């Protein structure tokens, strides 16, 4: 280490070094043991000069304190017990599989027929334009009351539409004819919409 570097350390500890040099030197000292050793020795001289008669001379207390902090933190961190990892992995997989199964079952309950898959999936109105001009597929217009927002078949866009237009008693939703005929949820919707229309 050069004399200039050591002099910079001396000035740094007295608050007499420029900010730029100080920041650079501090960064250097974090990684360079020789620089820190000079810092420690200069502070030892400070300790010796400042020491009063009753206190012992303190030398490099920082090293002992940091070692003790590190050993305390290592003892707090308890290592995972061997052989438990596989139990956790299997438990997690079982939970994930059961959740997936539940999702599949609840989805299939909305589609009773074992026929064509197309019949099981209702065509949702995804945009406002579709509400007005339905796609070329055979669709049916169903009037729904706002409380049908509880049905999970409705897309979020539709639910928002219903919320925004809550002054309207009925909202037009388009479904494929086949899915309306075969799904109990849509049958219920159609029934209720007919009931309101009749009223």
């Amino acid at each position, binding site marked *: 280490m050069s004399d200039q570097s050591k002099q910079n350390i001396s000035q740094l500890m007295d608050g007499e070094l420029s900010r730029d040099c100080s920041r650079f030197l501090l960064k250097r000292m974090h990684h360079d043991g020789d620089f820190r050793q000079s810092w420690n020795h200069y502070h030892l001289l400070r300790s010796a000069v400042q020491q009063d008669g009753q206190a012992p*001379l303190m030398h490099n207390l920082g090293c002992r304190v940091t070692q003790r902090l590190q050993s305390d933190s290592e003892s707090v961190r308890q290592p995972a017990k061997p052989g438990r990892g596989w139990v956790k992995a299997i438990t997690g997989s079982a939970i994930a599989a059961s959740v997936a199964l539940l999702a599949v079952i609840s989805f299939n309950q909305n589609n009773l027929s074992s026929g064509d898959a197309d019949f099981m999936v209702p065509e949702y109105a995804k945009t406002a334009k579709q509400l007005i001009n339905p796609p070329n597929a055979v669709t049916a217009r169903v009037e729904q009351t706002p409380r049908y927002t509880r049905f999970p078949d409705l897309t979020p866009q539709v639910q928002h539409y219903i919320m925004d237009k809550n002054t309207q008693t009925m909202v037009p939703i388009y479904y494929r004819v086949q899915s309306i005929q075969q799904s109990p949820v849509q049958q219920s919707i159609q029934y209720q919409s007919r009931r309101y229309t009749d009223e």
Partner: protein
Amino acid sequence: MKQDNNTKMSEKTLDAELVEQAKKGHMPAFEMLVNRYQQRVANVIAKLVKDRSEIEDVAQEVFIKVFRALPRFRGDSSFYTWVYRIAINTAKNHLVAKSRRIQNTQVEYEEAESFSTNEAHRNLDTPDAVYARGELEQVMSKAISQLPEDLKTAIILREVDGLSYEEIAEEMACPIGTVRSRIFRARDAIDQALRPLLDKEHNNQEHVRSI
């Protein structure tokens, strides 16, 4: 390098920088902070704790508490003022705990049982370490007394009286550059005198830890 009074990093700012680094978990920064205030804290503890052999242990406890309380330090007071309060409280708590220990000898058996797990602290009290600390004080004292008068005056004015470089320059009737140089040469002379002893003590401690 050109020095401008307006852009110097003051000691308070230096402490603040080291505290910020320590808060982020940079242990070298905290180590530097501890070494910076180790003696002043020991002097404070010595006013309450009369047993010299316990002062270093209490000082260690103080800085352990300081580290754990660092997230709560906001810089409203100076770092040393904050550490001073912790040191006083820790020293008082130590005295209270010590008086309880004297009354209850059962605690001494528990301390003995925990000795086998107390690896980190075992090496501090070997005969070599105790002797080395005594020798260190003697070497320091001798090295300071052998400094040239102008270097000794400059370092005493700085470390004991806490004068700035400008004030020392005024006191000693010399340029600031001369003050800067004298203080550095005084420190470097002590550093050169101590290196053989400190390297030997460091090697001994490493040897004891490895046992």
